[in-house]
């Protein structure tokens, strides 16, 4: 553990917040160009900086930054370890591609500056969430990201958007309530909220059932953010209603950061993965896989189908983490990264199609591959990745998860996970066939390929699908093994943390 004087971890939170703050003012002066450039520069800087910092993390361990105010320590500290780094890089990649995509896509929504402002707040919230070291900070940053996302879901201001946003807000509020309740109980028991002290406190206090109750509250609260079945109902309304880049952001990273990350961090590092928690996680994962996949098949709205697919894929992450074996955790984390890449790619593509044709209904599309060859290709790559076809990235993470299931002797889970993957392929083939292949419809004769920056973003993500898939041993070695080490060492990681 190192106290990183040279590494300014708070930049990840402060920079997007500051840019978000000045953005509305800039919006008064320049409607489009300056916000575009400034936002993209910010996200690009965050991406580059996360990689630079990450390189040092990989070589020298964990960084902690403590805030001080005129020399007085403020008891707020940020920590960057392998797991946080993985999430940070994932957030940065997706947010960079999303802002790139927004340059062209958000033209017709108007008020670009406000949009960017909200987006940056969301990014700041997520960055803060993955860097924070205590339960309360997690809650605060969770709310920061969530409130920005309510605004962004409602950004179109249509009837559906507002309804979806309201439903999302109301269900999230319930979740937040339960999370706060859980945090208060924990505080009451242990007298502290930092991970390390809570971890020790829980083991000192003999309150098994109370801790179990808190775990259930967290599982419900964060599970709702992660859209685990049965807490998923807000997602199929909220994600399709948002503008496509925001859908990409929500499905690609937000549900993982505010849901999956929090659950994994708290359950694996703070509470310790007990048999009960492991079982619950695996069953929730399995149910999510099938409910998400089966409903996805029947959808006609492309974005809604993708949203259900997100529920299904989140299930894979949890089933992998739930095994508790290092390989399963590795697979789950790898799937977080991969799902972020290909799901944001697919949502961005859905946006490109919607902008080109004006519809999201699959049965109205047809034969777009001829007019939109680039989008068709990247979409095919994304679809094959999500369905787990080698050599794309999704295949390897699913394979690792399934191998882990077999190793931990959950044979039925392994078979069902494969079956879920087949169903996934099924509905992605439906998208591919209905939208891109098949008979070219007369009305889409004048449809054009997506504009430059939109194509640029999707091509980057599609290339990432291939590159991660082909060089997966490298990716696993550099990014995932450090993250897995921290999680697989369980609570003992925190015993060593901060000198305990």
């Amino acid at each position, binding site marked *: 553990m190192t106290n990183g004087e040279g590494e300014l971890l708070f930049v990840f939170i402060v920079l997007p917040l500051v840019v978000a703050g000045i953005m509305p003012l800039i919006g008064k002066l320049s409607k489009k160009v300056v916000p575009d450039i400034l936002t993209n520069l910010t996200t690009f800087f965050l991406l580059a900086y996360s990689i630079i910092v990450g390189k040092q993390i990989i070589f020298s361990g964990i960084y902690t930054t403590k805030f001080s105010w005129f020399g007085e320590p403020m008891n707020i500290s940020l920590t960057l370890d392998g797991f946080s780094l993985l999430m940070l890089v994932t957030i940065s990649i997706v947010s960079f591609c999303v802002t790139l995509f927004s340059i062209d896509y958000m033209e017709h929504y108007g008020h670009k500056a406000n949009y960017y402002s909200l987006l940056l707040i969301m990014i700041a919230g997520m960055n803060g969430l993955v860097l924070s070291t205590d339960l309360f900070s997690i809650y605060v940053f969770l709310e920061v990201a969530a409130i920005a996302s309510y605004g962004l879901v409602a950004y179109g201001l249509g009837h559906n958007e507002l309804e979806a946003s309201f*439903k999302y807000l109301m*269900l999230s509020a*319930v979740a937040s309530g339960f999370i706060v309740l859980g945090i208060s109980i924990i505080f009451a028991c242990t007298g502290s909220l930092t991970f390390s002290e809570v971890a020790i406190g829980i083991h000192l206090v003999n309150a098994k059932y109370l801790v179990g109750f808190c775990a259930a509250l967290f599982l419900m609260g964060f599970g709702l953010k992660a859209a685990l079945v*049965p*807490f998923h*109902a*807000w997602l199929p309304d909220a994600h399709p209603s948002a503008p496509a880049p925001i859908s990409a952001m929500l499905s690609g990273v937000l549900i993982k950061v505010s849901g999956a990350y929090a659950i994994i961090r708290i359950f694996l590092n703070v509470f310790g993965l007990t048999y*009960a928690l492991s079982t*619950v996680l695996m069953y929730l994962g399995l149910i999510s896989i099938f409910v998400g996949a089966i409903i996805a098949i029947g959808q006609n709205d492309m974005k809604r189908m993708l949203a259900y697919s997100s529920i299904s894929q989140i299930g894979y992450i949890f089933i992998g983490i739930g095994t508790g074996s290092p390989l399963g955790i590795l697979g789950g984390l790898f799937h977080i990264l991969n799902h972020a890449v290909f799901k944001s790619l697919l949502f961005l593509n859905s946006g490109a199609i919607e902008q080109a044709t004006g519809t999201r209904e699959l049965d109205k599309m047809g034969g777009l591959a001829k007019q939109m060859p680039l989008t068709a290709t990247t979409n095919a790559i994304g679809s094959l990745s999500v369905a787990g076809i080698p050599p794309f990235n999704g295949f390897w993470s699913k394979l690792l998860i399934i191998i882990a299931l077999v190793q931990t002797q959950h044979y039925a889970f392994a078979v069902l996970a494969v079956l879920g993957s087949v169903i996934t392929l099924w509905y992605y083939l439906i998208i591919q066939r209905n939208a891109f292949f098949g008979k070219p419809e007369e009305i889409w004769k004048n449809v054009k390929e997506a504009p430059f920056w939109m194509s640029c973003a999707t091509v980057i993500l599609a290339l990432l699908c291939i590159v991660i898939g082909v060089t997966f041993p490298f990716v696993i070695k550099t990014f995932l093994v450090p993250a897995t080490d921290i999680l697989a060492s369980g609570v003992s990681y925190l015993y060593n943390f901060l000198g305990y």
Partner: protein
Amino acid sequence: MASSTTLLISILLPAVFAVIVFLIPSKLRALRNAFSLIGAAIVLCLGFYLFGVKNAELNIPWLGMDINFDLRLYHLNSLIIMAVSVFLFLITIYSFVKMKEHPRAREYYTYLFLTVAFVNGAVLANNFVLMVFFWESLLVTLYGLIAIGNKEAYKTALKSFILVGFCDFCMILGIGILWYLTGSLNMPLAPLDPSSSGLAAVSCVLMLIGALGKAGVMPFHTWIPDASKDAPVTVMAFIITVIDKMLGIYLFVRISLDFFVIGMNSALSMFLMILGALTIIFALFMTFVQNNLKRMLAYQSIGEVGYMILGIGSATPVGIAGGIFYMLNQTLFKGGLFLSAGSIEHRTGTTDFDKLGGLRNKMPLTMICFVICAVACCGLWPFNGFVSEEMVMHGAKETGYIIFMIAAWIGTALTAASMLKAAHSIFWGKENKELSKIKESELLITLPIIVLALLCIVFGVHNYLPIVMFVEPIFYGYTGFLEHSGFTAHALNFFNPVAITSFVCILLGVIVYLYGWSKNSKNAASSSESVRSFPVLKNIYNLAEAKIFDIYDQGLKFLKVLGYILYYGVDRVIDFMYEKIIAGTVRVVGAILRFAHNGYYANYLAWCIGGLIIIVAVISLLS
């Protein structure tokens, strides 16, 4: 040092010319011809130079893992490189006229030079991986060369690709086993005894399949007659009768001398001789009934592979020497015959016997060369075919099994009958009215044929020349061969029982032909009908023409049946289960779930709370 870099040049140079020829636009035909001629001439000089060098080695580190770019020149491969360079030169000249109007001539020349580059690499390679690399590259050029033929050629190209590819696969498998046994991928110095272990025998047989399949042995021969119909005749003459035979026999000789010990009268030797004898009989019986010159020559070349296998497979010094010499002679007379067929096709547009006739006055040069090559092919004294055939027969005789000689004699008779039939129906016989204005082919076409025909005579009359220069040095360094250095003694002597019997067999062939000719209304083209309708033979011929013996066709049929069974036995059943059970369940469950997602907030909230209660219950119960 200088000579070792020449080895690399001998591979690179033809490849460079292939690229140059490919880059020259199709319209600049003269330029292309000039470059091809220069290239062929340089390759020719290089071939003679390397034959003079005899011994050279080049070793460059390559892939690691004991796999080096290891080239070794010695007598046998320098002989092949020289022969190929001579043929390349002749074929290049020939193609200037013959391939003039061909729309894909540019590709043709490219493939031609590439093939030579790969052949040089394959025979020079002293490492198995390197050899396989060049050997497989040849498969590609073979495909390309056949495919530039007529419209149907791509099918034949595919067929040859698959059949030869299968043989190559066997060879690679054999090499893999050999690697496992010896632990080295460099060409082994100490030959293995195939009877020492089962694996060694399997490895030997697999590599033999690779070598002999390339040469076109039964049952991997069926693409050759098809190719004779579809591929350009120059490709047939150069690639299929010269290069493939040379390479196949080269590897066969390497296997039987360097890689494995094949003893006389060992099981493997018997197997090879039986294979050779069967190939002779079957292929030459098929030869006799063909009604197209090119197809007839194709079958005949398969039969001749049988002679070579019989000779080398006998594992006697004289037999092996005879087999190799037979290979050299076969390239001369069969190359000459194919080029004559090309000359006839060039002028008349056909090689069908019943459409030709009476060309002896119109194409005298072609006629004379054809007859010389044909007579050499029959093995008539004093032409080259006689010498090598006698050597093969003496080899077979030394093993003590007369039956193989009988097979060879039957083959001799059939060859004589078919050559007589061909010559008679094309150059004599009734003149076709449509062909009354035919003239002799251009000099560039006749010249290569004349060269080959002259070589047939020289190699026959002065047979000690090729035997002492080309064949005998192959055995330097191998024990048990030098005491037999008087190979020529067998060959020169016409007055020995074997040679006289052969002569009688040729006469017998003539009689069979004449009998058929007179029986079938003195029509040369249908003279084989008597043999064709002979009781037992008739059935076999019918089966053969229905492609019953074609393993490619049979393989395709088998795959079709297998596909049918799998489709109805497995696929449809699974599909039914899938349709009814999985898809049905998914549909029903999906409908229920969609119904549940009705958009009511209270509903969703209730799920959340319900889920929370269940989770609390489960955690409490389990912990």
